[in-house]
């Protein structure tokens, strides 16, 4: 039986990570809530098998991103999750409207990328080193560099439009 206390501590410590993954992958507030709960559930389910062979954040990103893929590709989604505290999903409401607007624009740019690019840019923006991005995604460090260059070009084109 996984240690509930330890698990709760880890989730509390890294709740921002889960929040950012849900913001990148989900397209509505309801989907964000669903995905958030799915990620916590999957983390709990696999917590027992986490043998500390990887950094806790590497394991969390891997589970969160894989859950996001599963969530995106579910054929039929039925929203019957319990509503959770709205504050959980509205935490970037920064008092400066201009900055808030830029953050929304940032998410909008990321959301236009394809699934692979979303994962790579998220990890890059999170400041993860290339070898950790490689461990989470399964792509080589060189391939990640190539893909990041492509993402840079894509973003430039998007902004010019």
């Amino acid at each position, binding site marked *: 039986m996984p240690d509930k206390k330890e*698990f*709760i501590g880890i*989730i*509390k410590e890294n*709740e921002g990570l889960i929040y950012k993954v849900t913001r990148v992958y989900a397209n509505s507030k309801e989907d964000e809530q669903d995905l*958030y*709960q*799915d990620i*916590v*559930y*999957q983390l*709990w*389910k*696999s917590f027992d*098998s*986490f043998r500390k062979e990887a950094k806790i954040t590497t394991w969390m990103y*891997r*589970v969160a991103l*894989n*859950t996001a*893929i*599963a969530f995106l*590709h579910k*054929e039929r989604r*039925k929203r*019957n*999750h*319990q509503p*959770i*505290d709205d*504050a*959980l999903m509205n*935490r*970037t409401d*920064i008092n400066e409207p201009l*900055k808030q607007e*830029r*953050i929304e*624009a*940032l998410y909008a*740019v990321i959301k236009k990328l*394809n*699934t*692979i690019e979303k994962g790579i*840019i998220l990890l*890059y*923006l*999170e*400041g993860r080193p290339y070898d950790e991005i490689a*461990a*989470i995604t*399964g*792509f080589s460090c060189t391939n990640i560099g190539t*893909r*990041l260059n*492509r*993402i*840079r070009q894509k*973003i430039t084109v998007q*902004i010019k439009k």
Partner: protein
Amino acid sequence: MELEEMKTLWEEMSIAVEKQKTITDSIIIKMTQTSFRNKMNRIWIPEILGSLVCLAEILYILINIQKLTPWYLLACGISAVVTLSLLILLSVKAIQKMRSVNISKINYKQSLLEYAAGKRQFVLVQKINFYLSAILLVVSLPVMGQLMGGKDLFKTSGFWIWYAVLFLFFYPLSRWLFKYYLKVTRDGEEILKELEG
């Protein structure tokens, strides 16, 4: 917005997010329990209910198989039992497949490959399901006519009208379904193309 500019903005946003710790112990516990219950509802129950209905029909036919005479009604009965058994088998396979993906062990790339393969398999299974259901409708109509109504429908005038009605129902449904399957197949191919890049 350049990548570096995006990173700076992201860092600022991350600091703001970190400052707003809102999750509580009870919310975390509730989330895992809620999710678990919903997973049961969403995935298992429809599959299990469908299998139970098929099983009940198999048992009903088998218990009353001696009533299926002449030979063509018996042939329809056996075909219905075989078709229903295949439908149950497909359901069991689908459940096994759902349980086999270990989200914590595989990486992002493997996960995407898994879902591309899953989409291909989904289309294949749905097509088989569709054809099996069509066969089941055709064969179970005379079987149920004999078992429930005591009538050999093949000898009843106007019996073929039922098949015409079934065809009218099935034809637009099949066109719609196959268009949908094409879309799912394309989605899977799109993922593979992204991975190659």
